[in-house]
């Protein structure tokens, strides 16, 4: 990688590491939380904050490196932002249809009413 001004490198590094951290937090939530409906929360962090930070870092790097504005990465983030709630909703509906077991102290079970 080419060297950039120090402040730019600092911001890009912070964005990259925070993106990786949020991806890891999302995966930890996915693997450690007790039931499916709780696990559905984890990947939201990986989508919005993880990929979002990495994409912004990539945009900054290529904009500063080539001198022209790198805008095409926004499409990836935009598409992920638009589709993540839809797929999460469909997964929750499928799990409710299959009556996936939930935690002991969950209040209310909409599929049994």
């Amino acid at each position, binding site marked *: *990688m080419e060297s*950039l001004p120090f402040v730019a490198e600092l911001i890009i590094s912070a964005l990259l590491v925070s993106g*990786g951290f949020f991806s890891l937090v*999302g995966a930890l939530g996915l693997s450690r939380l007790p039931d499916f409906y709780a696990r559905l929360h984890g990947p939201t962090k*990986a989508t919005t904050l*993880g990929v979002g930070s990495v994409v912004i870092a990539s945009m900054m790097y290529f904009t500063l490196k080539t001198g022209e504005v790198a805008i095409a990465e926004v499409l990836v983030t935009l598409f992920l932002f638009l589709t993540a709630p*839809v797929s999460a909703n*469909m997964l929750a*509906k499928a799990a409710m*249809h299959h009556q996936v077991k939930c935690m002991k102290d969950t209040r209310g079970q909409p599929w049994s009413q």
Partner: protein
Amino acid sequence: MMTIALYITLALVGVAVLLNVYRLVQGPDAPDRILALDTLYINGIALVILLDLVLGTRLYLEVALLMAVMGFVGTVAMAKYLKRGSVIE
């Protein structure tokens, strides 16, 4: 400094992928596995963008975009199949 941050990020996302694979293998129900696949392709997009940064090109941006589109279609198809029993009625 940026190179070190890049490799730290690659390691973090790699551990995230391993945890997703754990849920994919372990997951007690079918929706868990679909959710693990969903997270897996999102982390794959992050890995592809990081590969772009490592190589210093923007060649693989289209790969990331196609992964986003096709991953969403796959997730919706599998969830629809679980709910309805068929993908297209």
